[in-house]
């Protein structure tokens, strides 16, 4: 079963993509839900990274997410704000990201909403940019010369939202 972190943001859309792929999924809001033994993966959706980060810490989820990430067979995928949370460095974020993916990510790097755009593979909404890719991080997809989908072992992140344009291929590849 794949958990979708449901603190805030676009978690329903990820649940819908997983359902289309006939993968079992559940919403995750608490430490107990996160530690369920049947969970084999976690999606951190898009939304507001400030909100999600605040409640990851207040609800005591940080250590649980990090513990889960240590197991190579447990897959994690963050989209947009989710990628920001997984990153090692986010210069313009108040608070410490989870640091599970060795990349530097700049929030709202394309600009405000007027600069949001949609491609056939995903939607870039007030999207971040990956400005540094660590040694052990593989760039899986680029768009206009910038990395937009990266992975480091079991941890994946994208700056775009495949789930908002009905693209199930990224989830199929990851899970």
């Amino acid at each position, binding site marked *: 079963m794949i958990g979708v972190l449901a*603190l805030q943001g*676009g978690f329903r859309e990820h649940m819908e993509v997983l359902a289309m792929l006939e993968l079992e999924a559940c919403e995750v809001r608490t430490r107990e839900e996160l530690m369920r033994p049947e969970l084999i993966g976690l999606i951190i959706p898009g*939304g507001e990274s400030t*909100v999600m980060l605040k409640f990851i810490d207040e609800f005591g989820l940080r250590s649980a997410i990090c513990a889960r990430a240590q197991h190579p067979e447990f897959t994690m995928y963050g989209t947009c704000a989710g990628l920001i949370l997984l990153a090692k460095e986010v210069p313009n974020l108040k608070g410490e990201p989870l640091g599970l993916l060795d990349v530097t990510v700049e929030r709202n790097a394309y600009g*405000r909403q007027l600069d949001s755009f949609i491609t056939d593979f995903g939607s870039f909404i007030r999207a971040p940019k990956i400005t540094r890719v660590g040694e052990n991080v593989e760039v899986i997809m680029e768009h206009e010369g910038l990395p937009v989908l990266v992975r480091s072992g079991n941890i994946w992140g994208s700056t775009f939202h495949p789930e908002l344009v009905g693209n199930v291929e990224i989830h199929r590849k990851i899970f």
Partner: protein
Amino acid sequence: MFNEAGKNLAQMLKGGVIMDVTNAEQAAIAEKAGACAVMALERVPSDIRAQGGVARMSAPEMIKSIQAVATIPVMAKVRIGHTMEAKILEALNVDFIDESEVLTPADPFSHVDKKSFTIPFVCGATNLGEALRRISEGASMIRTKGEAGTGNVIEAVRHIKTMKKEIEELKSMNDEQLANAAKEMRVDVELVKQVRDLGRLPVVNFAAGGVATPADAALCMELGCDGVFVGSGIFKSSDPAKVAHAVVQAVIHYKDAKKLAEISEGLGEAMPGLEISTLDVRMQQRGW
């Protein structure tokens, strides 16, 4: 027909709380408390109601001062039908425009033609027809038109339940009945069919107006809203940072009564409330 990027931004706001703020300091408090966006406006609705006069778009310098401190989306309000206020807000690069009944309407005939804008719009609606007219005009997000500034949630609940009932009724209609319903609501039948098939609006739908406590916010979520706007409820309470934080938590944990009980404790005085029948101005009646 839709502003897809705008619809997508609204999807990212789901499960969150959008808070009214009147200056940069309040914006910082809201963001820190866990707001997913802020609404920049000159006066909160309860002050607009008390002071009267014409309520207009906020001054650009005030919006800029909020944009300078907020890292979350910044929304701002225009008067119903005031295309030029909307153009100004688009030029200021706000993230979302609320064409709002809380401000004094500017056009007695029409709403802003939102399709001609790149910036997305959220609009209020008391029922399905109103929501679908706004969506036809290009709105990327809908919210209820609960009586703003009253701290009284009954009207927001009325709008949520009315819309749900009307959507439910579409499901049992044949093609002819659907065509009639579309005609009555003054919208395209294809849009009505889309709503019937989805069983909900094709855009994100928030509660707004009269939400004053964590329990109010949880009630709106329980009734099926995607998220909540809180206006006067935060900064007219005795401890805004605490109330803001509590309302955000209530939206996340609306299904968990035990958590709601903890969240609701020690919040101090809620904003003063008003009985709807005593109001001189019903803001929800503004809009066509």
